[in-house]
C-alpha cells in the first residue's frame, strides 16, 4: 500500500461521497456544495497524476466560475428544497436500475479491456509549457473556435437573462 495509492483511495472516497450526497441532498445549495467537493477531489486526483495545470484550471474554472454561477442562480431564484413529485413512473422505476446497468456495463468493459489498458506510467509532471505548445500549435484552430463559442455563449446568456422591458 504505497502513499499514492492511499491518497488515491482517500480522494476517490471523497469524490464518490460527494457525488452520492449530491443526489441525496434535498436542497440545491447542499447539492452544489457536494459537487464542489467532488471537483476539488478530482483536482487532487489530477495533481496526484501529475497534471497540475489541469488541476489548477479545474479549480479555477469549475470551482471558481461555474459552480459560483450555480450558487448565484440558486440564490437569485431563492430555490427552496425540491418537491418530491413522481409524475413519471418510468423515471421512478426504470431510471436508477438503468443507470446502474450502464455503470455496470462500463465497468465490465473496463475490466474486460484491462489487458489492453496500459499499466500506470510513473507519475510524470506534464509541464505547462509542453501543454501550451500543443494547445497553440496542433489544436490552435479548435482553440480559436472555443473563443467564438464563448462569445456566443456570453451573448446568449445576456439575451436570455435580461428582463424584457
Amino acid at each position, binding site marked *: 500500500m504505497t502513499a499514492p495509492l492511499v491518497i488515491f483511495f482517500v480522494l476517490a472516497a471523497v469524490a464518490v461521497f460527494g*457525488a452520492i450526497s449530491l443526489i441525496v441532498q434535498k436542497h440545491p445549495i447542499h*447539492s452544489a456544495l457536494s459537487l464542489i467537493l467532488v471537483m476539488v477531489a*478530482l483536482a487532487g486526483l489530477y495533481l496526484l497524476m501529475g497534471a497540475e495545470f489541469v488541476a489548477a484550471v479545474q479549480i479555477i474554472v469549475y470551482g471558481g466560475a461555474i459552480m459560483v454561477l450555480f450558487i448565484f442562480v*440558486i440564490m437569485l431564484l431563492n430555490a427552496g428544497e425540491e418537491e418530491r413529485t413522481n409524475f413519471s413512473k418510468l423515471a421512478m422505476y426504470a431510471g436508477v436500475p438503468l443507470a446502474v446497468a450502464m455503470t455496470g456495463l462500463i465497468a465490465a468493459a473496463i475490466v474486460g479491456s484491462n489487458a489492453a*489498458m496500459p499499466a500506470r*506510467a510513473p507519475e510524470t509532471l506534464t509541464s505547462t509549457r509542453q501543454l501550451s505548445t500543443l494547445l497553440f500549435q496542433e489544436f490552435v484552430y479548435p482553440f480559436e473556435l*472555443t473563443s467564438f463559442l464563448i462569445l456566443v455563449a456570453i451573448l446568449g446568456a445576456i439575451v436570455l437573462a435580461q428582463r424584457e422591458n
Partner: protein
Amino acid sequence: MVPTSYYVLLSAILFGLGIVTFVFKRNIITIFMGIELMLNAVNLAFVAFSQSFGKPDGEVFVLFVIIVAAAEAAVGLGIIILTARNRKSLNVERVDLLKL
C-alpha cells in the same frame, strides 16, 4: 503507482452517479449539476489515459471540455432563470408541455 483502470473505474462510477442525478432529481439546477458531474467523470478518464499513455493531448481535450462546460453553464443557467421566471417552478415535472 496507481493502475489506470482504477481511475477509469472511478470515472465510470462518477458517470453513473451523474446519470442517476439526471434521471432521479427533479430540480432543474440539480439535474444540470448532474450533467456537470458526468463531464467531470469524462475528464478524469481523459487525464488518466493521457497520463498513462504519456501524451498530453488528453489534457488538452480536458481543457476544451472545461471551456465548453463553462459556455454551457452560462447559457443553460440563463435558460433556467427564464424558465423559473415564467413557470414559477424549478421542478422539471411541472414543465411538461413537450408533448402532443
